[in-house]
């Protein structure tokens, strides 16, 4: 256990550094990026198998005992997140190798992508509050650049809001860290949990908890803090948006889950009630915003918000089953959403537009792509037996068992509108004949096109598999949720490992 937990951080960094050193040679960079992505996935698989029995993999960086050094701690939630990052890394880097324009590659797309992955992985494995902040900054900075890379008008205009609001969030996060450190005198999450449990003045702690809720809420895209998302996500190339949608907001949600299951337990009724209310509003607001759109990428982007609402719903309900639902939903939505963005990108590659009004006729023209799309779209809408169904129904069951009627009503209503949005894309892009025949911009020969589609096929298979093999998925998620509900094991693993 001396190396493994640090690999999710060091491997992408090493890849990024190599890419930087080979900055003149795009082909070498491509190979490095692909190879590194595979390594990330491989590491994630190792970590996954090491922790799937409930073991918490702990490593003290620099051999300084917790809580003095920085501790990396991987529980089941972390390891499933790592696995998702690995899956995403492989697919998106392969996709980018095909889809991205040369100048972007030349000016550092691959190192930036790898460093984004490093930041995300770091956030998932760290057991230290300030270190979490650092990883947030790493991934945010990488995302700022990826967002603006290329310097197109819309990209730049959109990134202003993205950058500003995320920096605001960082300032609030930092304030929260400072205050919490002042109160507890430590930054180690396990130690914090420990102290908070014994500590006095939990009521004042609630104020700090709200600072964290704000900071993570902005990053997660929670209502009413998500405005940066619709403005910015639909502007960069598809590979970037796919990466963002899969990872960025999810890191916010992950952190919220981590902090509000481990550290902030002082006033669960108020805090989790707040999260639940936020979750409901997030769902509704996000789905309404998506409903109003007629640009494929934008619909997908804005929908991220409503899906965040679902994940938060599990946290808000704060039962084991509900958290199980959240975890399944997280996994599901990361895979499916990424896939949808890649498919949208493929469509844009073919037709040169994301506009629903201009597109059409792909159902006949590209049956393969249609199948990939409809499966993912329906999975997103929660059609059984795809992954989305199990995610949704688990949350609904949890909500009904907790007798939180209103959130259930909201969740159900939102899922209907989600379906509406997905069928809207389907009807406009695939079913409807193209209003004006669009030229086929795709210069790829058939074999290459098939390779290009491979990541999408892979993700589609995963979403189906997550439904068909829902048993093991559910077992794992509920184990992970049980770990979250009983933070003592985490605390013991971290503080006892010194």
């Amino acid at each position, binding site marked *: 256990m001396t190396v493994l937990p640090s690999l999710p951080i060091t491997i992408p960094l090493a890849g990024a550094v190599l890419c930087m050193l080979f900055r003149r040679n795009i082909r070498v960079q491509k190979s490095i990026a692909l190879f590194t992505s595979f390594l990330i996935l491989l590491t994630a698989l190792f970590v996954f198998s090491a922790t799937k029995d409930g073991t918490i993999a702990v490593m003290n960086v620099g051999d300084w005992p917790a809580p003095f050094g920085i501790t990396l701690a991987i529980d089941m939630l972390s390891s499933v997140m790592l696995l998702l990052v690995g899956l995403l890394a492989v697919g998106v880097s392969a996709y980018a190798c095909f889809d991205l324009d040369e100048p972007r590659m030349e000016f550092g797309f691959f190192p930036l992508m790898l460093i984004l992955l490093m930041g995300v992985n770091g956030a998932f494995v760290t057991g230290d509050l*300030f270190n979490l902040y650092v990883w947030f900054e790493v991934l945010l*900075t990488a995302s700022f650049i990826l967002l603006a890379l290329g*310097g197109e*008008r819309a990209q730049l*205009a959109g990134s202003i809001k993205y950058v500003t609001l995320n920096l*605001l969030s960082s300032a609030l996060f*930092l*304030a929260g860290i400072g205050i919490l*450190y002042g109160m507890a005198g430590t930054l180690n999450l396990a130690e914090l949990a420990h102290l908070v449990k014994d500590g006095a003045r939990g009521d004042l702690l609630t104020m700090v908890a709200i600072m964290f809720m704000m900071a993570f809420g902005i990053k997660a895209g929670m209502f009413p803090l998500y405005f940066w998302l619709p*403005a910015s996500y639909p502007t960069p190339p598809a590979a970037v948006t796919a990466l963002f949608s899969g990872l960025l907001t999810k890191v916010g949600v992950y952190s919220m889950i981590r902090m509000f299951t481990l550290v902030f337990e002082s006033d669960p009724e108020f805090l989790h009630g707040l999260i639940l209310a936020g979750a409901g509003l997030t769902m509704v607001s996000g789905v309404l915003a998506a409903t109003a759109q007629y640009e494929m990428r934008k619909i997908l982007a804005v929908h991220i918000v409503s899906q965040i609402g679902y994940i938060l719903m599990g946290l808000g309900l704060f039962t084991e089953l509900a958290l199980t639902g959240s975890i399944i939903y997280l996994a599901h939505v990361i895979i499916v959403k990424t896939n949808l963005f890649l498919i949208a990108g493929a469509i844009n590659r073919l037709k040169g537009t994301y506009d629903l009004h201009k597109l059409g006729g792909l159902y006949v023209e590209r049956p393969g792509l249609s199948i990939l799309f409809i499966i993912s779209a329906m999975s997103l809408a929660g059609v059984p037996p795809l992954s989305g169904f199990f995610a949704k129904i688990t949350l609904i069951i949890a909500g009904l068992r907790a007798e939180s009627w209103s959130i259930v009503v909201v969740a159900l209503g939102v899922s209907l509108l989600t379906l509406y949005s997905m069928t809207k894309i389907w009807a406009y892009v695939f079913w409807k004949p193209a209003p004006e025949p669009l030229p086929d911009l795709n210069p790829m020969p058939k074999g290459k096109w098939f390779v290009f589609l491979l990541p999408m096929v892979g993700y589609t298979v995963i979403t189906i598999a997550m439904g068909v093999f829902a048993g093991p998925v559910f077992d794992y998620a509920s184990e992970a949720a049980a770990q979250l509900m009983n933070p003592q094991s985490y605390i013991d693993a971290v503080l006892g490992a010194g």
Partner: protein
Amino acid sequence: MEVVLAIVIGFLYGGGLYLMMRRNLIQLIIGLGLLSHGANLLIFTAGGLRKGGAPILAEGEKAFGAMVADPLPQALILTSIVISFAVTAFALVLFLRTYQTVGTDDVDELKETDS
């Protein structure tokens, strides 16, 4: 003393936010700068002000005798300063390019991508 600094922190946060709500890209940058000052001072203050020496062990000594300042918040702030600097530098270039490409430095006019 802490009360005084707490008020200063409040001013920094408030001032930073006010500037971020203006219409110029430059004011936005400056606002972010103030915000970052506020955050750093906040860590410093909330981490506990000890009016002691620097946490540096004098040549020839093996352990700290007198009370010294808490080194951890200092290290955190150092990291935070650096990160802010990096982000500010990037944001500056970003805003510059935005101005050159979009043709305006009026934040209120940058709304085409929102709805």
